[in-house]
């Protein structure tokens, strides 16, 4: 811990002392608040001994590209891809004020203006992400598959196989996705976890899109379907867009900001996919607890939430 603070101090070239406080949340990467004299930063790093889906240097590069495209993101400051002074692979970013806690964003009176603006801001950010030139991402992300939907289905089948628990409803969903896949989309940069919880919001609305570790090249509508699944509405079930807005409002603003025309059936497809993906992630988090990767009653309890996205998926395909 002292060693880590020393490493961070060296990277920042801070003369004074820096202190590190863990920020809770973040499923697979550790997040630390770094405080120096009158200044704040955020350190994100892999837990020691673990490797994430998108290596940290790639996440760092993606945040740089998104920033260039006008997407609100934290300012990337330094990266240590091999661990080095951060102990494990990590990156330093500017601190963005606000909250990412969904119930606060949805219900606190001080976020009323933010709620009024958020649907359009999310649409504009999505259009910006999807406008990033994929040819400039060589060496940052793996090349796009011929069929992005099939590639995603295979990825989450693989993750499910690692868990080893039988989930017949999820398997049914995966087969429905295989047999109903839309025409392969032109590959775009896809955030991969674009949802309430990964948006830092202040009183004026969206301040930053965070958590890029599921980013990949794929069908841009995947991000829209994932954004809209019921689990990210946090109880505001009649408002598909982050529990705040309506789909038509989002699509109008997305197309207005330069996004490709959105086919509603394709949104339904990717919403069904999103539910399958969330079901697998829930099962996986519980499995991480059971396997001793990270013991936590919160992760354990997610195993019993698999049935929620299973239910929502069945409503979409029946």
């Amino acid at each position, binding site marked *: 811990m002292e060693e880590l603070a020393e490493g961070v101090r060296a990277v920042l070239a801070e003369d004074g002392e820096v202190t590190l406080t863990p920020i809770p949340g973040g499923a697979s990467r550790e997040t630390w608040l770094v405080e120096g004299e009158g200044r704040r930063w955020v350190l994100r790093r892999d837990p020691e001994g673990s490797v994430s889906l998108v290596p940290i240097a790639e996440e760092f590069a993606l945040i740089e590209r998104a920033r260039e495209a006008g997407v609100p993101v934290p300012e990337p400051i330094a990266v240590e891809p091999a661990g080095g002074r951060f102990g494990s692979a990590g990156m330093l970013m500017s601190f963005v004020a606000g909250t990412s806690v969904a119930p606060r964003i949805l219900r606190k009176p001080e976020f009323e203006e933010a709620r009024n603006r958020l649907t359009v801001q999310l649409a504009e950010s999505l259009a910006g992400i999807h406008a990033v030139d994929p040819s400039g991402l060589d060496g940052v992300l793996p090349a796009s598959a011929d069929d992005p939907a099939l590639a995603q289905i295979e990825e989450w089948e693989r993750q499910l196989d690692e868990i080893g628990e*039988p*989930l017949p*409803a999820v398997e*049914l969903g995966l087969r429905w996705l295989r047999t109903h896949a839309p025409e392969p989309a032109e590959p775009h940069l896809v955030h991969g976890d674009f949802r309430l919880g990964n948006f830092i919001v202040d009183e004026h609305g969206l301040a930053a899109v965070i958590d890029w570790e599921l980013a990949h090249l794929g069908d841009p509508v995947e991000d829209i379907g994932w954004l809209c699944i019921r689990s990210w509405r946090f109880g505001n079930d009649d408002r598909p867009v982050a529990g705040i807005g309506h789909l038509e409002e989002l699509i109008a603003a997305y197309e207005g900001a330069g996004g490709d025309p959105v086919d509603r059936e394709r949104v339904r497809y990717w919403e069904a996919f999103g539910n399958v993906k969330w079901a697998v992630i829930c099962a996986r988090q519980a499995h991480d607890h059971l396997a001793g990767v990270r013991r936590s*009653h*919160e992760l354990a309890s997610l195993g*019993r939430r698999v049935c929620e996205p299973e*239910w929502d998926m069945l409503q979409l395909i029946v």
Partner: protein
Amino acid sequence: MQDRPTAPELLESVAEYLVGELRPDVPREQRFMVLVAANVCAVVAREIRAGESPDREDLALFSELLGEETADVHAGAAELSRRLRAGELDDRIDELAPRLEGHVRRKLEIARPGYDEP
């Protein structure tokens, strides 16, 4: 025979303590974890109360969908999952989807009652 409180009653007493007494005294950023703990107690209490009937109904459903008896509910779920993954049931997806709603509903009744209501 064990004395009262029953197992679900004991769990409910812990859940009440966690939410009613402990939660306000815990630092704000840890309160969510207290709620999660209380919810886990409530889930287990409902599972104990439901007894063996959800598993029995799932076993009957899986056996019917597979067209053969299976040793237990876990083996039935595994065989159904295997056949689905292999694509052997692709021509029955529309028939199977509403049938599996029953299985998912039985999980929701324990884990999240009311989630399946509009």
